[in-house]
């Protein structure tokens, strides 16, 4: 029995225990304990993240003539620890008062707990996959587990978007299966190593097909362009902490498989040789990543529902991860990989703050909130830390990973990609300011005068996550060894790092110094503020200059609706529904063909069908003969 076996056993026992006890109150206390146990199991395996050996599972399954097995590499461990911490935080968050309110409002709390553990279980199974077959099985599990969580919400939109998701996911799974079959058909083996070997033996067109099939499968899960339409609404409609969990890590399984398959086995050389003249697969993927950063970010800017805004950002931030990793150098890939953890930490925290606000006020509509900072200061603090992270400003962790990505683009001489990345960041700053302004700043509504801070069961996970956001930003060296071993395990150049950041010949980064200077500046600023100049008087929010006009409580005077009118006026038309149009047209084409084939199946003239069959058979025969000749 290896540590990995222990991990699987604990996860499986947790699954059984939670599914058995899900309708009892004990599950509230049990679930966090179980996630804690899983976390301990993972921590026991932490040597793999510091350059230790790969953990192999002693269990294996014989399937046909093939042995299916599981393993944990540094890459698996890195994604697994993010998953489990996110699940732990979500479980703690939902265990107390939130769960009670959810039950009272008629939600199926037991199913939510079950969905969470099923997700964790399936993700660990996927992350631990040791060959293509176990990968495929894990992949299917993960798809259906997410679906289970999405359908929990009673709204019609949620059901619709969940069904939309599963259609996308099945398409991805089919693409994956075809790709796996392509590999199997060459060497009759499903080991990961085969991918690389098979790839070199293939013709260029087959190579292209293989890469595209893999990429489509993974891109759908990760919500990359042009498959980004399903994700935001589906995640936003998932109830409370479930959204936090899904938004934090679920779609990053796509990132995991991209690193595992495309980066590790096909590699830079493989991608570069596909393509004509200056457009190769690497530039193509880089541009997909860049557009994924920009377009969803600016769609997020348009949203007026806090959860959707965040969910769209979740899609957008995926672009940075791919953009970093696709550069294939030490800093870029480190940035891309690190962004997975950073994004998970602040995205979960942000979703939780929004859920906390919903818990108290009952709405996440940004036009119906405002001024909550005095009522919920700690939630505000968490959101502030979260948005600084999401916007990628120092001293939070989002800055470090984005800095690495920028640095890599700069070193590689990619001005347009660089601008695209910056455009994404600036859009993010605009949109997160809108989020915090419309929720916590501005005028407090009359109906929210008695809103109070959320209970500690919700605050603790939020504060814990925001501490992670800060600490990993202040000392990125805590995470960088994991990144380095991931890079080593997948054959990327390894980043040179220290506790404060990275060393690089042409300008490095030391976050301890940078944050130190920032806090020194804030300290001096505070000294100036508090010791020069007299005391100030706190005033009521209606004591406000409005051109000599009286602001009274019955007049709403909070500028929130259509927050960036100038920008929207200019760019609103650029992206309005073009992808929606694409999706709709694909739907129409598919339904057209389904009608066509339906007619053929029910054909009145069997002769016609026979004729088509014969023609096709003759064509196939001709091709085979031709190839044989």
């Amino acid at each position, binding site marked *: 029995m290896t540590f990995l076996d222990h991990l699987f056993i604990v996860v499986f026992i947790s699954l059984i225990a939670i599914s058995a006890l899900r309708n009892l109150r004990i599950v509230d206390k049990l679930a966090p304990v179980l996630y804690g146990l899983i976390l301990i199991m993972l921590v026991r395996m932490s040597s793999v993240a510091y350059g230790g050996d790969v953990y192999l599972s002693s269990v294996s399954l014989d399937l046909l003539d093939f042995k299916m097995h599981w393993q944990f590499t540094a890459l698996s461990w890195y994604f697994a620890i993010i998953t489990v911490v996110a699940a732990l935080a979500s479980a703690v968050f939902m265990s107390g008062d939130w769960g009670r309110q959810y039950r009272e409002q008629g939600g199926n709390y037991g199913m939510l707990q079950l969905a969470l553990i099923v997700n964790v279980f399936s993700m660990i199974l996927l992350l631990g996959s040791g060959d293509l077959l176990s990968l495929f099985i894990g992949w299917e599990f993960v798809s259906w587990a997410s679906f289970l969580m999405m359908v929990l919400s009673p709204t019609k939109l949620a059901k619709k978007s969940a069904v939309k998701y599963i259609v996308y996911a099945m398409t991805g799974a089919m693409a994956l299966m075809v790709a796996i079959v392509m590999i199997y058909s060459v060497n009759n083996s499903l080991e990961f190593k085969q991918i690389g070997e098979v790839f070199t033996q293939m013709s260029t067109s087959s190579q292209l097909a293989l890469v595209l099939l893999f990429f489509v499968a993974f891109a759908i899960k990760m919500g990359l362009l042009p498959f980004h339409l399903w994700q935001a609404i589906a995640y936003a409609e998932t109830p409370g902490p479930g959204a936090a969990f899904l938004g934090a890590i679920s779609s990053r399984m796509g990132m995991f498989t991209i690193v595992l398959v495309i980066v590790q086995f096909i590699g830079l050389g493989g991608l570069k040789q596909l393509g004509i003249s200056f457009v190769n697969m690497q530039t193509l993927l880089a541009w997909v990543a860049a557009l994924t950063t920009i377009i969803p970010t600016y769609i997020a800017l348009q949203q007026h529902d806090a959860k959707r805004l965040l969910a769209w950002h979740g899609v957008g931030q995926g672009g940075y991860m791919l953009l970093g990793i696709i550069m294939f150098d030490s800093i870029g890939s480190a940035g891309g990989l690190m962004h997975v953890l950073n994004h998970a930490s602040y995205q979960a925290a942000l979703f939780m703050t929004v859920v906390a606000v919903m818990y108290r006020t009952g709405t996440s509509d940004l036009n119906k909130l405002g*001024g909550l*900072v*005095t*009522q919920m*200061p*700690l939630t505000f603090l968490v959101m502030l830390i979260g948005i600084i992270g999401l916007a990628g400003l120092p001293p939070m962790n989002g800055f470090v990973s984005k800095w690495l990505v920028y640095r890599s683009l700069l070193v590689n001489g990619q001005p347009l990609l660089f601008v695209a990345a910056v455009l994404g960041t600036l859009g993010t700053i605009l949109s997160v300011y809108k989020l915090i302004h419309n929720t916590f700043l501005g005028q*407090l509504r009359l109906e929210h005068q008695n809103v*109070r*801070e959320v209970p500690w069961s919700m605050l603790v996970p939020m504060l814990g996550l925001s501490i992670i956001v800060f600490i990993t930003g202040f000392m990125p060296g805590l995470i960088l060894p994991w990144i380095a071993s991931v890079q080593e395990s997948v054959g990327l150049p390894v980043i040179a790092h220290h506790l404060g950041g990275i060393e690089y010949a042409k300008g490095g980064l030391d976050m301890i110094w940078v944050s130190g200077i920032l806090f020194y500046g804030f300290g001096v600023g505070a000294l100036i503020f508090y010791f020069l100049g007299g*005391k100030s*008087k*706190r*005033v*009521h*929010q*209606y*004591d*406000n*200059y409005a051109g*000599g*006009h*009286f*602001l009274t*409580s019955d007049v709403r005077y909070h500028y929130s609706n259509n927050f960036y009118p100038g920008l929207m006026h200019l760019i609103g038309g650029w992206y309005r529904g073009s992808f929606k149009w694409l999706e709709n047209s694909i739907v129409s084409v598919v339904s057209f063909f389904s009608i066509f084939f339906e007619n053929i199946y029910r054909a009145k003239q069997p002769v016609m069908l026979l004729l088509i069959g014969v023609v096709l058979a003759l064509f196939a025969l001709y091709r085979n003969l031709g190839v044989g000749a």
Partner: protein
Amino acid sequence: MKKELKIIQKERTNPLAHVFDDFISFCQSKSLFMLHYCTGCGAIELPPAMTSRFDMERLGIQPMVTPRQADILLITGYVSIKTLKRVILTYEQMQSPKYVIGICSCTVNGGMYWQSYATAKKLNEYMPVDVYIAGCMPRPEAVMEGLQRLKDNIRNDKKEHKGSAWKDYFNRYDYYLGNQQALFGDDWQTPTDIIAEAKLYDLETEETYGKHTKLLEKHQTPLLPQEMRIK
């Protein structure tokens, strides 16, 4: 007019305080931000005072647009009752030390609207006025002269207490509030809590309170600031 003011100067204990105070009052006299509330005709005399002919900026005076930033409230022309409400609101939103300059005869005595039922006559019944510049309309030279007078008042505030008229509003709030209530009715209330401000900055005297402030207490909706609370 100045005879009416009763300024109470608090004793300072720090021996260096006088040097600081002197320095700050010197800077205050050298840097004045001006909010002009131009209700009527007088506004036309201000552009020459600001632009190349007389150039206010060389005296350190520049226009600002919100009362929060401004030091001088410059009221030109007649003040109708409705306008007066806004003027008082604006005045209360300015931060001390603040100065009021009434330009044109209308602010002194109603001017040519002296028998109109709709305009207020004496501005200094409703707020302490530092300098009046009479005339219909006063020439820019007169405006500059008035501003210069104000600067001297601020500079020599320690000796003559002419630049501290603003304290009178806090010290005798009841009187000003009474005049305002007589005009606007008993339920008159501004969004600014002057009494709390007087308390916080140690500017209250016996005359801050009276029957008018009692009346205000009876009618007002409370204006307590929202404090942060964790539980």
